[in-house]
């Protein structure tokens, strides 16, 4: 139970992190329809149900494993955390109007702010940002980058590979990095490239790392 509490506290602490990287300069940006389409297609399209194993590891080396469920369906984002044997620890839904409905939250997942933090992480992984401020450009390594500026003035840089996104970096208003997501070992399912391994890092003194392994990916009708 202690490690669960630490897990929750760390998720909630992501706003008070020590900064380690700054937002890079991009060149040759385009915000046209073609770029917008390319960027949008780097995320999964349509309705899906994913399950991942989620290994949470602190700097001290303690860790535990959960099963994460993500359902994208008709503009809704649904998520749940289960123990590996299937007990539901947390279950919530973000409706198309962004309202969050928590269906179940056992301690310590019932802490204020946890649902919002978790859904924000899940949204980063699976949903293309909805914003009018978008740019397709290249970084100094000549890699294509989709840069989004969110309604909270944060910046999301989505680095593209030939098979969907491979890296997502989030920067705060001071252009310093707050989170990074790395996707690898993509597999093609129903014509879309899904990363089989995802590493989510939150930076700062209470930083943590989540390792996600894809267990199942089902395209929904």
């Amino acid at each position: 139970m202690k490690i669960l509490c630490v897990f929750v506290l760390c998720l909630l602490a992501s706003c008070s992190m020590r900064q380690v990287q700054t937002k890079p300069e991009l060149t040759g940006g385009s915000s046209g329809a073609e770029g917008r389409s390319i960027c949008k297609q780097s995320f999964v399209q349509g309705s899906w149900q994913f399950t991942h194993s989620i290994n949470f590891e602190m700097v001290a080396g303690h860790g535990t494993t959960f099963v994460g469920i993500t359902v994208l369906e008709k503009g809704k984002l649904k998520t749940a955390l289960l123990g590996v044997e299937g007990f539901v620890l947390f279950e919530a839904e973000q409706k198309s109007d962004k309202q969050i409905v928590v269906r179940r939250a056992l301690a310590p997942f019932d802490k204020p702010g946890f649902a919002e933090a978790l859904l924000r992480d899940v949204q980063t992984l699976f949903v293309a940002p909805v914003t009018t401020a978008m740019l397709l450009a290249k970084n100094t390594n000549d890699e294509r980058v989709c840069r989004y500026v969110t309604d909270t003035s944060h910046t999301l840089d989505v680095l593209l590979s030939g098979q969907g996104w491979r890296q997502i970096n989030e920067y705060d208003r001071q252009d310093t990095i707050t989170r990074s997501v790395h996707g690898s070992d993509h597999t093609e399912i129903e014509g879309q490239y899904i990363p089989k391994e995802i590493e989510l890092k939150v930076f700062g003194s209470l930083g943590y790392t989540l390792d996600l392994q894809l267990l199942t990916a089902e395209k929904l009708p």
Partner: protein
Amino acid sequence: MRLLCAVMLLCFLVIPVEGVAAPEVKSVQANFVQEKNMAILARPLLSRGRFLFQAPASLRWEYFTPLHSILLMDDGKIRKFVKTKDEFVEERSMGLSAMQMVLQEITGWLDGDITDTPTFLAKRVAERKIILTPRKPALSKIISQVELQLLDDSGLMKSVTLYEGEDSFTRMVFSDAVVNLEIAKSSFKGP
């Protein structure tokens, strides 16, 4: 985790059907399919695995898919392993002492007397169906009811359904059950 152990041990019960003597249980092993239903799921989650139980309190509860994990109980020790990147890693965050307490309580049910547990109230609602409800409100928040379905006059379990809320339940259906076949001790020691 205490609850988890309690529910898993339900699967090893051999419950006397009225008028039929229950066999002495030294060991039970069976395959299972676990179906998870939740409001948010478009499709239920299916897990497959196998359990081994050796009296008085040795257990190997293993999921093969979709996530390979093993819960072991042996000589009063409880360990849990999850396969990550082709190797089993032992989970270190469990409340082991609490699990041991529940184990001691529930293993008493193997003689078929499941009415005296301080955790659940038991009611036989049909010849082969028993409903367990938690005694304590705190536990009711986690699990509202457990339904045990017996296979036949042998008293072996056909399925266990765990209700976590109005629209969330987990059903474990057992198959190929074998009673009193010797199980290697190493099965309870590690992956």
